[in-house]
């Protein structure tokens, strides 16, 4: 049975609207809601949390309808992009706020706060005031505050976007770890494509208040359901595989094909290669490019000055070349060609 069911929701708030919005999630699932800025992602989450009146439609959690329940009776954790810690309360009292409001007895409240702080590694911050925390610390406190009430649903509104890149990675791991441990059903809103891919069991792409597509990363990337999804994903060579460290350097294996990469990471990972970084030739290449494959051209798309050539290795690689290269090399569909790209051109995330 679906754990969270949003059914034909209609909401209208100051010029913005959700229309016939439907989305389901199973217990413990981590769903990424991916959409461009201004797609109404925050309003969607606020509506699920009960902060906006619903015109029509239903929201149910575990079969219980919560559509018209006030937010304080929903037990849904919410983390805003810019933290929204209570500036007049210490970290400890921020974490305890939800328990105080629910009139949990003092003793078990202290235990729960301690537990949540331990889970996110912020025990040492408990006596501090929010103003003295760094961005990453604030974010962790906001997450702990939402988790301490043992929410039935966790809503994250672009939780990583206000952080600098290094912090981002560590908090991303924190999120994964917390989710693995607690398996709280989570909706995580973002406009960042790579964030979506690294975190989501599944991704829902939304645009102007409407679901465009829901599916796995591969589904959405390989079979975009609409023009918008295709455009939003962009033309990229995106692959998922396992990175191993070998003598000659790191190698990512996908379906038996090995791609040399430059990274410290290992284990499952995603990589992308920009189509303009791939070289195509009719003869075998002997160059500094460590990745070199032979394949067959499966598609040639003409886009004015630039030509998109898809080469199946059999893994499909999209390569961008100039019109002149196309005529010079006389490329045609079905032709056997070589492609090559440098290990440093492979983006791992």
């Amino acid at each position, binding site marked *: 049975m679906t754990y969270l069911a949003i059914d034909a929701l209609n909401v209208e708030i100051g010029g913005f609207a959700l229309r016939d919005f439907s989305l389901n999630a199973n217990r413990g699932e981590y769903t990424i809601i991916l959409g461009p800025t201004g797609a109404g992602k925050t309003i969607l989450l*606020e509506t699920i*949390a*009960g*902060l906006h009146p619903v015109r029509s439609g239903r929201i149910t959690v575990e079969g219980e309808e919560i559509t018209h329940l*006030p*937010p*304080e009776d*929903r*037990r*849904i*954790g*919410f983390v*805003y992009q810019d933290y*929204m810690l*209570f*500036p*007049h309360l210490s970290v400890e009292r921020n974490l305890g*706020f*939800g328990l105080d*409001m*629910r009139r949990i007895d003092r003793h078990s409240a202290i235990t729960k706060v301690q537990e949540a702080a331990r889970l996110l590694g912020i025990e040492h911050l408990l006596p501090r005031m929010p103003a003295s925390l760094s961005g990453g610390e604030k974010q962790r406190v906001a997450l702990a*505050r*939402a988790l301490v*009430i043992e929410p039935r649903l966790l809503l994250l509104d672009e939780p990583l976007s206000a952080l600098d890149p290094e912090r981002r990675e560590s908090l991303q791991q924190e999120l994964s770890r917390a989710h693995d441990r607690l398996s709280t059903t989570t909706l995580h809103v973002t406009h960042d494509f790579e964030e979506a891919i690294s975190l989501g069991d599944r991704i829902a792409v939304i645009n102007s208040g409407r679901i465009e597509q829901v599916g796995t990363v591969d589904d959405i990337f390989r079979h975009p359901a609409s023009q918008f999804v295709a455009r939003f994903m962009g033309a990229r060579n995106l692959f998922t595989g396992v990175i191993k460290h070998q003598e000659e350097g790191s190698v990512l294996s996908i379906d038996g094909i090995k791609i040399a990469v430059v990274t410290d990471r290992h284990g499952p990972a995603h990589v992308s290669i920009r189509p303009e970084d791939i070289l195509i030739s009719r003869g075998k290449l002997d160059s500094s490019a460590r990745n070199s494959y032979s394949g067959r051209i499966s598609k040639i798309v003409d886009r004015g000055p630039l030509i998109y050539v898809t080469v199946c290795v059999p893994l499909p690689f999209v390569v961008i070349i100039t019109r002149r290269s196309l005529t010079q090399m006389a490329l045609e569909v079905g032709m056997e060609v070589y492609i090559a790209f440098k290990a440093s051109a492979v983006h791992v995330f």
Partner: protein
Amino acid sequence: MQTLSKDWMRISFLLLGGVLILFIVWPLAQTVLSSKPGILWQTLLDREVFSSIAITFYSSLIATGIAFLTGVPLAYLLARSTFPGKRLIEGIIDLPIVVPHSAVGIALLMLFGRQGVLGRAFAPLGIKFVSAVPGIVIAMLFVSMSYLVNAARDGFASVDPRLEKVARTLGASQWRALWHVSFPLAWRSILSGMILMWARGLSEFGAVIILSYHPTVAPVLLYTRFESYGLDYARPLATILILSCLVVFVGLRMLTGRSR
């Protein structure tokens, strides 16, 4: 040459502005400095003076309390909601600043006087407004409530509404979210508004004198002493009033960066 020409404009502006500053400071300073401490102390011990100051202070405190109960919720609505007529209400809140004080007294008397609609309505409860503390309170309330409502509205407006939203998701009712989150965060603004309102209430004369000659508030007592006995007799009380307002005002300035 550049610095010189710059200085010429600055200097002339400073001189012009200095005249204005001097015009404010000089009379107040002279009044305060020319009073002997012994006479001030004697004046304070004067029963009539003491009771008038007491009446002034606590009437203004009651007016501030009433404005707190009615004006702070209104300020919250003005900061958080948009509704038709909002701009009109904001205009009405600012209105008492410009209505002549003696006209305020007349208008209040027409409504709260013995013949007035509310005067007659409250009479059975034993509350009368003419020549009574309730009259002083409503006169002060009328002329000074703008300061509290505006300060409280600015205070609430500076609290991110999403803090309340987060509190709601954490289990706080709307009322408790206001009480535990927005109110403490707006408190400094509200408090400074209350102090400013209280000080403005203390200083009211025109509206109060029409409603209540007896009991006498300090500004009215000052006036009657001046009328009956002349300047020298009025001066110690004027000094005491100016000094107490200065204390309140400096306290206010220390509470907030800028009071306005």
